[in-house]
């Protein structure tokens, strides 16, 4: 069987060819390729890990921010409610104050009016009294010529006036 018998020439060429191919590739070919492939694989793995970590961090951050937003919303509601209450309270206070001030002013005005009316009445009374005295003086000067009549009339008048005066004073 010629096919099963290795030829010396082919053995020589095969040794040469495979030897050269192996030496060149083992020196300049495959170590570079294997190293590059493995380092890239490593890089991809670490990148994947980093990406996963980042994703996880992102998720926690998102949760945290959502929490913060929720808290802020709650706080806002609270503040709004507080403000509303305060506003109402202030308004009520202002109302009250205004009312009391109005009442005070009214009272003061009433007091003043009363005082003034009193003064006017006092003046009028004084005027009327003076007028009455002078009128009476004149009437009496003409009527009472004698001393006795004068004296009687004076006493009567004095009584009447006194009683009348007292009545009018009390009626005020």
């Amino acid at each position, binding site marked *: 069987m010629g096919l099963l018998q*290795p030829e010396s*020439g*082919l053995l020589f060429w095969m*040794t040469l*060819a495979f030897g050269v*191919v*192996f030496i060149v590739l083992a020196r300049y*070919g*495959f170590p570079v*390729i294997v190293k590059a492939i493995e380092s890239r694989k490593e890089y991809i793995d670490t990148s994947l890990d980093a990406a996963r970590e980042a994703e996880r961090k992102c998720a926690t951050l998102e949760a945290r921010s959502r929490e913060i937003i929720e808290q802020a919303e709650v706080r806002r509601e609270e503040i709004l409610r507080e403000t509303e209450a305060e506003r109402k309270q202030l308004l009520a206070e202002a109302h009250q104050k205004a009312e009391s001030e109005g009442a005070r002013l009214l009272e003061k005005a009433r007091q003043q009016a009363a005082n003034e009316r009193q003064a006017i009445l006092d003046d009028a009374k004084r005027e009327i009294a003076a007028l009455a005295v002078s009128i009476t003086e004149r009437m009496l000067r003409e009527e009472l010529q004698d001393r006795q009549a004068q004296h009687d009339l004076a006493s009567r008048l004095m009584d009447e006036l006194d009683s009348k005066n007292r009545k009018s004073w009390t009626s005020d």
Partner: protein
Amino acid sequence: MMKGFIKIAWLFALLIPAVTLHAEESTEAEPDIKQIVLGHLGDSYEWHIATTGHGEWSIPLPVIVHSPASGWHLFSSARLREGSEYEGLRIAAEGEYAGKIVERQEDGTDLRPLDLSLTKTAAALLLNSAVVLCLVLVAARWYRRHKATDRAPKGFVGLFEMLVSGILDSVIKPCVGPNYRKFAPYLLTAFFFIFVNNLMGLIPFFPGGANVTGNIAVTFLLALATFLAVNLFGTKHYWKDILWPDVPVWLKAFPLMPLIEFVGIFTKPFALMIRLFANMMAGHAVILSLTCVIFATAGMGAAINGSMGAVSVLFSIFMYCLELLVAFLQAYVFTMLSAVFIGLAQENPEKHAPEQAGNTANK
């Protein structure tokens, strides 16, 4: 996808006429099919391309021989065409050295000189080796120019990386074990060397078509390389397992087990050699025989010849598809078994798991 399909269709469209055209040429003479098939499987001193009406087209290759009587000879094989003699050398037509260069001795007998001629197989071997070197070095250049943080390669280097990382991850790392970096260059070289030679052998016209990995000398040296890689770098534990295995003393005192183990050192690479050789040679033989069906039936009338031609082409297409698979598979198997054998020799005493893998691979 469609583009790839069209490309493959083109490839086959190119393959079929090349095979059949070759077949039609030699219908004139009564075809000696056995001779054709064996001639293609074997080696020759010139690279036959085609035979046309104007004669044979073949590339003469250098003949390099050293005979003890006349010393070194170096000339073109064109001088030995058709049985002519040059410098006392000729190609024997028959006898023990049929088809080989012989020298007529003084006493009239033929002697075969030391024949280092660059035959067809050797020339194809050198060409394919150059292809392997180019492919790997081009890819290596890409890696040298890019950092690990760059984008992954595309196109040819991407394909190459797919193969390399596939072999590395699925074969070399699990089979060789922690020491795989030391052996990865050899195993990858063996894989790509065999793979490229297998594929080039499938191309039916000139730069391909040579039956390189189906030649026993080639597979012998590949197996020898694995043998050296296994035994030169074997650990103490590996040698202890061979010479003094863990079996009852009566099995090794009368050195039955050591003998079996010692024979095993040689049968493992021997199986590698035969497996690759037989698979590739058989693939070539089947394709050639199917092609020869066309001229074997040439004399049986147009109907039979035509229908058998169609059958031959269909079967050839099928066989080419199968051989594409086998081309990869045999390279893969050779690499994997080499890796397993190397891994067995690298084994440390505390680990016993790879031993079983090796035993099953042996069977």
